[in-house]
C-alpha cells in the first residue's frame, strides 16, 4: 500500500473500510443481517460491500435476530468468521440466548476446544427521535457476561482499528456503534492498522478532573472539557475504548493524577457501566480522590419520543460541564 496518507472519513466509512479490508484479507470473513446487501443497512454503513464480495459473503437475512445470530455462532465454530449485523442495539434482547448461553460459553464449556470467532456489530444511542424501542444503549448487559468482549469506538480512527482487531480475535466480540456518529468525520489512515483491546485512550490531557467517557459520550466530554477550559478547569478525557477487557490502570492513574472523576456513558445510569467504572476508580484511587466519583448515564426512564423530553435523558456538554464544575467546587 503506497499511501500512508491520512484521509478524513466518516465513522460509517471507517467501519466499511475495516470490513472491506478484512474481507479482502481473509475469505472466511462474511457478513449477515437484515438488509445488509443491496440496501447496505438503513444507515448505509455497508454500501458497496455486496457489490465487491457477492451475496454469499454479504448475506441478507429474514428478520430473525435470534436465528441468524445463532447461525453466526455455529458458522464461527466451524471455520467462518462472521460479522453479524444487528440493526438497532435494542434488538439485542432477541439475541441474548445465542450470545450469552451459547457464544460466550462455548469455549469454556468445551474445555477450550471450540472457539467462536464472531463479531456482532450493533448500534446504541438516543436523541434520534426514535422512541423507547429504538434508542437504548444496552451494552452493560454484554459487559457483564464472561466470555464476551465489548468494544465501543468513539472516533472513525478507533472504529477502523478496533473493528479489525475484533474480526481477528478468536472470541465473540460485541461491537457498539453510536448511530448518531455515523456521519461524523475524522482522520483515518489508509493503511492497515489495529488497535489492541484493553488499552484506553487519553483523548485529551488535563490536570484537574478526569472525564471517563465511552462511545457517543466522548464527544460530549470533549465539548465539556472545552467549556471547562473557559472556566479555568483543566479536564482530562479518557476513553476506555473496550469495556472488556477494561484498562483499569489508565483510568485509575488518571483519577489519581487529577483527584476527581466523572464517568459518562449513554447506557442507563443504574446498574450499568458507570457503576463499574466508578467503583474501579473509587477503589483504585481511594486515597487520592478529593470528591466522590460522579456518574452520568441515561436517565432511568424509557427514552421518550417527544424531543424536549428526549433531550433531557442523556448527558450533554452542558450537564457534564455543570457537574464537573460542581465537583471542582465551583458551583
Amino acid at each position, binding site marked *: 500500500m503506497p499511501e500512508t496518507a491520512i484521509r478524513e472519513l466518516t465513522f460509517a466509512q471507517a467501519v466499511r473500510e475495516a470490513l472491506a479490508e478484512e474481507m479482502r484479507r481473509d475469505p472466511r470473513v462474511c457478513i449477515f443481517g437484515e438488509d445488509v446487501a443491496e440496501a447496505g443497512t438503513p444507515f448505509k454503513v455497508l454500501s458497496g460491500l455486496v457489490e465487491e464480495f457477492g451475496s454469499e459473503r454479504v448475506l441478507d437475512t429474514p*428478520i430473525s435476530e435470534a436465528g441468524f445470530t445463532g447461525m453466526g455462532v455455529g458458522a464461527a465454530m466451524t471455520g467462518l468468521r462472521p460479522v453479524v449485523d444487528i440493526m438497532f442495539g*435494542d*434488538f439485542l434482547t432477541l439475541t441474548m440466548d445465542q450470545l450469552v448461553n451459547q457464544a460466550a460459553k462455548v469455549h469454556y464449556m468445551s474445555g477450550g476446544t471450540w472457539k467462536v470467532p464472531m463479531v456482532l456489530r450493533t448500534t446504541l444511542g438516543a436523541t434520534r427521535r426514535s422512541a423507547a*424501542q429504538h434508542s437504548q444503549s444496552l451494552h452493560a448487559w454484554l459487559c457483564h457476561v464472561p466470555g464476551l468482549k465489548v468494544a465501543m469506538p468513539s472516533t472513525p480512527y478507533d472504529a477502523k482499528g478496533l473493528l479489525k482487531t475484533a474480526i481477528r480475535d478468536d472470541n465473540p466480540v460485541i461491537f457498539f456503534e453510536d448511530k448518531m456518529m455515523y456521519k461524523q468525520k475524522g482522520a483515518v489512515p489508509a493503511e492497515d492498522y489495529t488497535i489492541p483491546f484493553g488499552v484506553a485512550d487519553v483523548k485529551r490531557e488535563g490536570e484537574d478532573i478526569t472525564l471517563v467517557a465511552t462511545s457517543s459520550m466522548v464527544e460530549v466530554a470533549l465539548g465539556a472539557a472545552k467549556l471547562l477550559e473557559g472556566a479555568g478547569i483543566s479536564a482530562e478525557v479518557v476513553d476506555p475504548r473496550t469495556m472488556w477487557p477494561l484498562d483499569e490502570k489508565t483510568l485509575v492513574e488518571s483519577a489519581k493524577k487529577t483527584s476527581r472523576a466523572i464517568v459518562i456513558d449513554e447506557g442507563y445510569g443504574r446498574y450499568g457501566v458507570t457503576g463499574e467504572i466508578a467503583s474501579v476508580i473509587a477503589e483504585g484511587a481511594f486515597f487520592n480522590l478529593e470528591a466522590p466519583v460522579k456518574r452520568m448515564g441515561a*436517565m432511568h*426512564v424509557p427514552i421518550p*419520543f*417527544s424531543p*424536549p423530553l428526549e433531550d433531557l435523558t442523556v448527558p450533554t456538554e452542558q450537564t457534564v460541564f455543570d457537574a464537573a464544575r460542581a465537583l471542582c467546587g465551583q458551583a
Partner: protein
Amino acid sequence: MKTITDPAKTDNPVAAELGLRLYRQMVRIRLFEEQVNELYTRALMPGLAHLYIGEEAVAVGICEALKNTDYVTSTHRGHGHCLAKGATPDRMFAELLGKEAGYCRGKGGSMHIADPATGNLGANAIVGGSAGIATGAALTAKRLKTDQVAVCFFGEGALGQGVLYEVMNLASLYKLPVIYVCENNLYTEYTHFSETTAGDILLRGTAFGVHGESVDGQDVRAVHAVAQKLVGRARRGEGPSLLLSNTYRYTGHHVGDINREYYRSKQEEQEWKTKRDPIKNMGEWLAGQKLADRSALEKIESEVREEMKTAVEFAIAAPYPGVEEVDQDVYA
C-alpha cells in the same frame, strides 16, 4: 356484511351505510398519511414515520368487523390500524409531533400509539413484538369470558420472528380468540419477501393448528367478509386463525425512503396504484352498485380533508409536555 357481497341486495340501506363507512374510513387513513408525509417534508415532524398508504383496506375491513371493546395490536406501520380502530386524528397528529395532547402525551410517537378507550393495546416498533401481547389479551378474554376478540396485525417480515410461532402454538392449545393478520405488502424494509420467506405462509399457521385464510387485501369488502367470519369463529370459542392479506405499500418503507429503484421498480408501484387501489376500486364499486354517486364520494373526501386539516392544525398548535413529565409514568 354478506349483504354487500350479495349483488341482489345492494339496495339494502344497511349495505349502503356500511359500504360508505368502509370507504370513508379508508379515505381517512389515506389523507391522514398524506398529511404525515407533508409534516415530514415540511420538517415539522421529529423522526420518521411508516406510511400505510395502499394498505387501507386491511385495517378498515378488519376493524369494522370488531367491537370497540375488542383488542388490536399494531406495528411500526400503525396509523391505519389505530384510526380504523377508532382513534381520532387530532390526538394522533399530536402524538406524531411529540405533543402532550397526543395519545401517549408525546412519549410514544408514531410507532407507539396506544389507546385503552378503543381497545388499542399499542403499536409496536419491534417487528413481531406484539404477538405475545395480543395472545395474552385473548387469554384474558377467554378466562374472564368477556367475549372479546384480539387482532394482531403484523407485516410479513414478522414471519421471521420465532415468537410468532410460539404464541400461535399457545393460542391453538388454549383455543384463544385471537386473529393473527399478516399484512404481506411484499417487502420488509428493502428486501422482497420471497428472499426472506421460505415455504408457505398459510401453512405456518396450519402447522400449529391455527385456521388459515387468505384474502385480497386491496378489496375491502372481501377483507371485511373474511374478518367477520374469523371474528365469529373466535367469539364462538373455535380458536385462533391466521389471515394472510395480500397488499402493497405505495410509498417508501418510511417517509425518507425516496429512491426505491434498487429494490423495486416504479412500474410495479404504478401497477398497484392504478389497478389495485382499494379506495378507487371501492368507490367504483359503490358507484356501480348505485350505493353512492360520485358527488357523495367527493363529499366524503372533502369532509375528511377538512377533518385532517383541522386535526393537523390542532397538533401543530398544541404544547409539548412539560419537562417535569420526563420521569413521570415510568411506574404505575
